[in-house]
């Protein structure tokens, strides 16, 4: 153990690890000096440790754009804040948070789509005079979520194109060494999701999409990639009856989705997007947050109202949990979008 690792300096160094690298670059030296002075006055203090831990967590949230204010950066000059860095970081966070929204949203939307399809596929007959029907609120929720999902996919495509172009240009120019790993992770995870989704969509429990709101193939793929959002995790006995491949797929999917989201966020942070592209992406992110808010209103209405006497539209506890997760992720995205907007205003100010 070196001398720096012992005594007050060592304790200060250990406490500093609560903070993110960007914060340590900016405040690390002076904060360590203050901690050393404080430790020498009060060698043991649980209150200090808890205070530093709390401050470190808040700094990490701020570093992700979730603190409601741009984090000052080392070398940012008199302005203290590097607004473009903060926009990049915030956009990465928004992307990851909206990916969580999309994952849980897809699970609920595919459930509504299945119910809608079966409700329109069976006509009244002598054998079945009381066929499934589409209740008012659940029908409204299905329409709203379908329209919102389409809008989110359009916005996501529009947001992805400039990032892909910038990343490709940097890789071709040989200036993208730090982009290789996230590109590889992104490509592998997308390949896993696409291959698995295509494989398992054969188990789609819809009607083939002939009477659906969205094409059957898309609905089936959406269903397959959201199989893991399931109440079966709470019933291991019932889950064990599933084929091994399907259980493996349910286990792999959330990791593949997380890999896609994290790799995309890393690429946005590292790609060196121009100020113009950053402003464009921030506008799209704000629009995506608004559309996801509409989606949330749709599913919340459905979950709050229940099946309205239509068993096919019955929302389970898993849907309540998914709605909660979606709301939390959306709140994070909105917070980060606010930080991105404030940072862009800072960037536009004359020096």
């Amino acid at each position, binding site marked *: 153990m070196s001398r720096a690792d012992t005594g007050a300096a060592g304790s200060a160094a250990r406490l500093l690890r609560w903070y993110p690298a960007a914060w340590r670059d900016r*405040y690390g030296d*002076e*904060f360590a000096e203050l901690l050393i002075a404080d430790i020498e006055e009060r060698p043991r203090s649980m209150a200090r440790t808890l*205070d530093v831990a709390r401050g470190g967590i808040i700094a990490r949230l701020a570093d992700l754009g979730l603190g409601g*204010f741009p984090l000052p950066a080392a070398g940012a000059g008199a302005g*203290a804040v590097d607004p473009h860095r903060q926009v990049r970081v915030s956009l990465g966070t928004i992307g990851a948070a909206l990916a969580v929204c999309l994952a849980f949203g897809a699970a609920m939307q595919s459930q509504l789509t299945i119910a809608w399809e079966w409700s329109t596929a069976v006509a009244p007959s002598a054998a079945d005079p009381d066929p499934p029907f589409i209740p008012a609120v659940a029908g409204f929720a299905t329409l709203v979520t379908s329209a919102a999902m389409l809008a989110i996919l359009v916005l996501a495509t529009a947001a992805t194109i400039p990032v892909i172009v910038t990343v490709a240009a940097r890789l071709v120019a040989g200036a993208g060494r730090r982009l290789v790993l996230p590109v590889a992770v992104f490509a592998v995870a997308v390949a896993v999701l696409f291959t698995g989704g295509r494989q398992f969509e054969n188990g789609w429990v819809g009607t083939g999409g002939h009477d659906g709101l969205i094409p059957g193939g898309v609905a089936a793929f959406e269903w397959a990639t959201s199989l893991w959002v399931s109440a079966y995790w709470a019933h291991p006995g019932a889950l064990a009856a599933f084929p091994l491949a399907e259980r493996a797929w349910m286990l792999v999917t959330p990791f593949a989705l997380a890999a896609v989201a994290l790799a995309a966020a890393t690429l946005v942070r590292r790609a060196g997007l121009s100020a113009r592209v950053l402003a464009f992406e921030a506008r799209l992110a704000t629009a995506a947050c608004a559309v996801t808010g509409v989606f949330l209103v749709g599913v919340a209405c459905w979950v709050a109202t229940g099946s309205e006497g239509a068993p096919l539209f019955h929302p389970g506890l898993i849907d309540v949990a998914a709605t909660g997760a979606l709301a939390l992720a959306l709140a994070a995205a909105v917070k980060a979008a606010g930080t991105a907007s*404030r940072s862009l205003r800072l960037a536009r100010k004359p020096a």
Partner: protein
Amino acid sequence: MSKRADGEPAGRGLSGFGRYAGPATLILSSLADGPKHGYALTKDVEEFAGVRLAPGTLYEALARLESQGLIQAIETDDRRRPYQLTAAGATALKAHLDAQRRVTDVGLRRLSINWTTGWGTA
């Protein structure tokens, strides 16, 4: 009305700081007396307010104040970097203290009327 570094008007005092307004007020009040580094700030605040700002709380507030342009760091070779109040910071502090003084004046006046003449003495 002057603007803060993030483009928000500074004349509203520290209303945007929410529960962080307490440490922010103490720090700005301390810096109104001249530039100080973290340890000197802690000692000064302890002396004039009787409050010891814990290191994490102090730097959380410093980062917020600095990001909003209410204080700024002074370049130095010393590891202990001093901070100074900016013009926007002085305006925000004055607005915040004026608002606090109005509350204090009203509270003291009402206390002097109602708590020395009978009904509130129980």
